[in-house]
């Protein structure tokens, strides 16, 4: 079943990420982004008949979808929870389109809303829930940091990727953040020196190569192509989608320096009938600098192992030859839990609509969005377009 041109994103809502969520609740933030997305689309809550939610990573109540539907006043014909970590948001978009194509529902609200508590998350949740963690936890991993650090170390060993090349990703994205008033870290540009002189958190990754967890929420509304034409906003069409999951813990990854984006992007490009060279901008999940470099390689923007020199010699800023993460990426915009993944969707939509003000990419027609969950384990790639090309 192809989803090419079946559905469009017609509404976007997003809160500015915050490190001080005092008084905020997951449901409350979900409500605010829902209101924004409805206004953006010119829709009412009664127009929504499908709901996709991300798991609440801190509270994880049972039957969270039903609670969100009740709170917002949605009478839903389709409710589900999507649990693919950083790939959750992108995964919601194609699931919404598939449900619409199947005739199960016609308009789907997709919400990510996260109140972040890093200690609770790592001590109570990530490491201790799975019985399979018994082979890893006694050695003192450092959450996902140690996983990505080990990926970066081996990539440097195999391909000669340098710390400066890794740092360049954070530097370029910071320039983008400096043109986005909603970025958590958009006050001043960074230099490669700044990145490399920040503390080594997990060798070889420095503090400024690692996302800053925070709190926030984002939502999008997906509807069928015909209904999209009647919405208040300019529709952004889903042209291709692909998903691939290979492991949970990086210890058991089939190949630690190769991302399943290889398969997910391959499938997305095939569905869209497009190639990497057709893309006007990229919105690549960037939990760490190394993630962007490997994603560029395995999605086909450069040869395997060439990601380091590629980012060194290309301009990833909004005014560059290959604009990437024009909102600043999660490295500079912030990582409000699973809403961090949604920010790659919302930014691509805003760019394709031409709504990005100072950081607008000229004549942006086609965007690649990637969601990356776990430790380079869960990948979802979307191709979005201003028209159905």
């Amino acid at each position, binding site marked *: 079943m192809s989803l090419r041109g079946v559905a469009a994103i017609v509404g976007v809502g997003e809160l500015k990420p915050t490190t001080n969520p005092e008084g905020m609740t997951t449901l409350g933030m979900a409500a605010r982004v829902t209101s924004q997305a409805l206004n953006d689309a010119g829709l009412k809550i009664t127009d929504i008949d499908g709901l996709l939610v991300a798991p609440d990573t801190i509270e994880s109540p049972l039957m969270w979808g039903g609670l969100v539907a009740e709170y917002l006043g949605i009478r839903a014909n389709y409710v589900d929870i999507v649990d693919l970590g950083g790939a959750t948001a992108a995964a919601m978009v194609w699931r919404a389109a598939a449900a619409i194509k199947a005739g199960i529902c016609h308009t789907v609200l997709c919400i990510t809303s996260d109140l972040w508590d890093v200690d609770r998350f790592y*001590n109570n949740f990530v490491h201790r829930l799975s019985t399979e963690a018994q082979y890893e936890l006694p050695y003192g991993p450092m959450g996902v940091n140690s996983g990505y650090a*080990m990926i970066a170390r081996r990539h440097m*060993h195999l391909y000669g990727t340098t710390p400066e090349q890794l740092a360049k990703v954070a530097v370029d994205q910071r320039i983008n953040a400096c043109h986005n008033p909603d970025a958590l870290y958009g006050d001043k540009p960074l230099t490669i020196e700044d990145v490399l002189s920040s503390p080594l958190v997990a060798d070889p990754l420095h503090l400024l190569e690692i996302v800053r967890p925070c709190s926030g929420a984002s939502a999008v509304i997906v509807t069928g192509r015909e209904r999209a034409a009647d919405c208040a906003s300019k529709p952004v069409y889903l042209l291709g989608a692909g998903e691939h999951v290979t492991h949970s813990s990086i*210890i058991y990854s089939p190949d630690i320096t190769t991302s399943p984006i290889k398969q997910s992007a391959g499938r997305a490009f095939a569905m869209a009938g497009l190639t990497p060279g057709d893309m006007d901008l990229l919105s690549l999940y960037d939990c760490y600098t190394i993630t962007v470099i490997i994603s560029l390689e395995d999605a086909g923007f450069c040869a395997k192992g060439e990601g380091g020199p590629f980012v060194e010699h290309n301009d990833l800023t909004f005014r560059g030859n290959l604009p990437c993460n024009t909102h600043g990426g999660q490295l500079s915009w912030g990582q409000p839990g699973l809403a961090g993944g949604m920010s790659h969707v919302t930014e691509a939509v805003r760019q394709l609509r031409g709504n990005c003000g100072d950081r607008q990419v000229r004549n942006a027609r086609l965007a690649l969005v990637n969601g990356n969950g776990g430790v380079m384990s869960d990948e979802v790639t979307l191709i979005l377009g201003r028209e159905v090309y």
Partner: protein
Amino acid sequence: MRRPFLPTTPVSEPYWSYLQRDELWLPRCKSCSRLVFYPREICPYCSGLEFTWEQMSGQGQVYTYTVIRRPFLQEFATMAPYVFAIVELQEGIRMATNIVNCSPDDVYIGIRVQAVFEADDSGRKLILFEPA
């Protein structure tokens, strides 16, 4: 220090029991003959359900690693900085471990290592690796 051990299951129990005797044993799938780590109820390569346990050499090399300086887990505060690594056994299996009995600066990808079996303050042993 006390390491954060998790409860074992009937499937994982042989693995941990052998470690208490300073031996590393892993399950081999009876139908496709591949070694499987970690132990589970089904072979992830062929869906086979029966395994035989086999002793490993304890020899391997560092596949990749990181040096942890600011542990998330309280238990490791006194151990930092320490090496969290993936070791590839001679038999081809990769596993998480710590590289011990050397400075973190001595570790590199490809360094040959051998198993050491070490108890934490609770008396329970696990497998670590040191330069060979």
